C-alpha cells in the first residue's frame, strides 16, 4: 500500500551540506572578530557535522516539509539524563560513552532470542534517511534527518509470538560510561516501550545515524529509537535490550511521575502537561523573534490515528 504524506517533499527544501557549512564558516569568522572573549562560552559541538560518514538514500515517503535543524542545534540541545539534566550536558559529557563494541540482547516472547554484536544485528537491514519532526514534551521541536531502518523489519526477523503484546527498549546502564546515572534523578536503566502495533507501524524507526553521519554519543549512539508521533522521551537512546512482553513495561518517566507522563505520550495539543500547555511549541532554530508554532495531533503524523480508535486520549495520555 502506498504511503501518503501531507505534502510532497521537495529536494530544494533541504540545504546542501556544503552550503550550510560554508555559511557557518563565514559566521564563525565574523564572530571571532567580535567582542566575544568576555562572553561565557556554552557547550559547543563542532559547527560542521563530525563523525564517520554513513551514506544512505533518502526515503522520499518520509520527508518532513519543514527544513531540518542545524547539526549544532540537534547535537547540543539534548535531553539525555544519563549525561546530566541540563540540555547542554549531553554534548559536554557524552564523551565517556563507548558505542563500540556494542551488543544488543533480544529477549522475551519471540521465537528467536539472543545477544548480538551490533554489526550482526544491523547487517540484514538496508539503511535509509528519513526526515522527521521531533516534538519534546517540554514544548519545543526540531526537524532531524535520521539514518536507520524500520523497527518493523527488525521485529519481523525475531518472530514475536502471539503473546508479544508490547516491546520494551532498555538503555545501557553503566555509571562509568554514563556519569548522570550516579545521581538518582531517574530510576536506571531507562526503559521505554510501545504496543506491538505501534512498534510495527511503518513510521517507527531505529536510527544509527543523523545528518549523514553515525549517531554522535549525545544523540543516543550507537542505536536509538525514533517514534515521531510521540513525545521525544519515548524514543529510547543507546539501546542494549529489546524485549517482547505480554504486559506493558514500566516506563521510566511514567514511573517517575505518573501524573505528568503516561505510557502512550502521543503528541496531543488537546491534552496539556499538568504544568504547561501543549498547544504550541517553540521551533528550535527559528530565531529570537519567531512566534511559537501550533502543535498538531500526533505531531502531524495523522496516519497513526487509527492505532488509537476508540481510546480516550485524555485518559491514555
Amino acid at each position, binding site marked *: 500500500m502506498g504511503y501518503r504524506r501531507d505534502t510532497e517533499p521537495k529536494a530544494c527544501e533541504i540545504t546542501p551540506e556544503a552550503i550550510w557549512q560554508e555559511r557557518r564558516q563565514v*559566521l564563525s569568522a565574523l*564572530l571571532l572578530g*567580535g*567582542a*566575544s572573549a*568576555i*562572553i*561565557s*562560552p*556554552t*557547550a559547543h559541538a563542532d559547527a560542521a557535522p563530525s563523525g564517520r560518514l554513513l551514506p544512505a538514500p533518502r526515503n522520499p515517503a518520509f520527508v518532513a516539509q519543514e527544513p531540518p*535543524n542545524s547539526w*549544532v*542545534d540537534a547535537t*547540543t*540541545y539534548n535531553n539525555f*539524563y544519563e549525561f546530566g*539534566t541540563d*540540555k*547542554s550536558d549531553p554534548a559536554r559529557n557524552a564523551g565517556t560513552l563507548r558505542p563500540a563494541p556494542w551488543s544488543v540482547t533480544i529477549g522475551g516472547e519471540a521465537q528467536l532470542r539472543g545477544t548480538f554484536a551490533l554489526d550482526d544485528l544491523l547487517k540484514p537491514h538496508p539503511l535509509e534517511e528519513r526526515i522527521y519532526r521531533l516534538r519534546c514534551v*517540554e514544548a*519545543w521541536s526540531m526537524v532531524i534527518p535520521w539514518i536507520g531502518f524500520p523497527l518493523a523489519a527488525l521485529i519481523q526477523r525475531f518472530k514475536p509470538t502471539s503473546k508479544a503484546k508490547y516491546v520494551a527498549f532498555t538503555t545501557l546502564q553503566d555509571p562509568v560510561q554514563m556519569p548522570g546515572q550516579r*545521581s538518582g*534523578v*531517574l530510576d536506571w536503566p531507562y526503559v521505554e516501550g510501545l504496543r506491538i502495533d505501534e512498534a510495527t507501524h511503518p513510521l517507527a524507526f531505529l536510527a544509527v545515524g543523523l545528518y549523514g553521519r553515525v549517531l554522535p554519543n549525545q544523540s543516543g549512539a550507537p542505536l536509538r529509537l525514533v517514534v515521531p508521533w510521540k513525545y521525544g522521551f519515548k524514543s529510547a537512546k543507546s539501546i542494549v535490550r529489546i524485549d517482547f512482553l505480554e504486559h506493558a513495561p514500566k516506563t521510566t518517566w511514567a514511573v*517517575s*511521575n505518573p501524573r505528568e507522563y503516561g505510557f502512550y505520550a502521543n503528541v496531543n495539543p488537546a491534552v*496539556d502537561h499538568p*504544568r*504547561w*500547555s501543549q*498547544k*504550541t511549541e*517553540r521551533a*528550535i*532554530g527559528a*530565531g*529570537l*523573534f519567531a*512566534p*511559537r508554532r501550533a502543535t498538531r495531533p500526533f505531531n502531524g503524523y495523522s496516519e497513526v490515528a487509527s492505532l488509537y480508535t476508540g481510546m480516550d486520549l485524555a485518559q491514555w495520555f
Partner: protein
Amino acid sequence: MVLSRQRGTYLLGKTAAHLGAATPLALLVLQVLQRPESLGANPIAALTDQLGLWALRLLLLTLTITPLRLWTQHSAWLRYRRLLGLWAAAYAALHLLMYVAVDQRFAGSVLLEDVIKRPWITLGLATALLLLALSVTSTRALMRRLGRRWQTLHYAIYPAAVGALWHYAWQVKKDLRAPLTYAALFVLLMALRLAKRSFRARFAPAITPGRT
C-alpha cells in the same frame, strides 16, 4: 568639586554596586547582539531562565544586607539594600516580559489560561507584582509618609523570596538540585537573622531597645 572622603566612599560603593548588578544584563545583551548562538539552541528559553535566575540571586543578595548589618554592626550596608532590591525587581520584570512579549507575543488567551490553570505561573506573576509594588513604594518620600506601615509592607520581601524559590522549583522537570541550593541559601539567611536575635536576647538584652 571637592568631595569629602565619606561622600567619596559612598558614591564609589554605590556605583560599584550598580555596575555589578547591571553586569549580567549587559552580558546577556552583548550575547544577543554579538554571539546569539552562545545562548544555545533555544535562546528565548535561555534568556528567560537567566533573567529569572538573576532576579532570584539579587533578591537573595538583598536579603543578605540585614544579616551583614546585624553581624558586622555596620549600618553602612543598608545603603545597598534598596539598590539591590530594585535591581532584583528589574530582572524579574524583564523575566516576565520575556515570557509575555517574546515567548507568547502577548497572546491574551494563552496568557490568561496559563495564569489561571498553572499555579507556578500564577505564583511567578504574583511574586513579580509584589516586587513591583515594593519598588514603587521604595522612595524616601513614601517611606516617610507610610511610617510604620511602610516597614510592614516591605516585610513582603520574605513572601516574595519564597514565591520566587517556589516558582523556580515548580517548573523544573525533575532535577531539583539547583532550586534546593537557592532555598538552602534563603534558609541560611533567615537563620542568621534569628541566630543574631537569640544571641542578643541571651547575652546583651539591654543594648537592643529598638526593633530591627
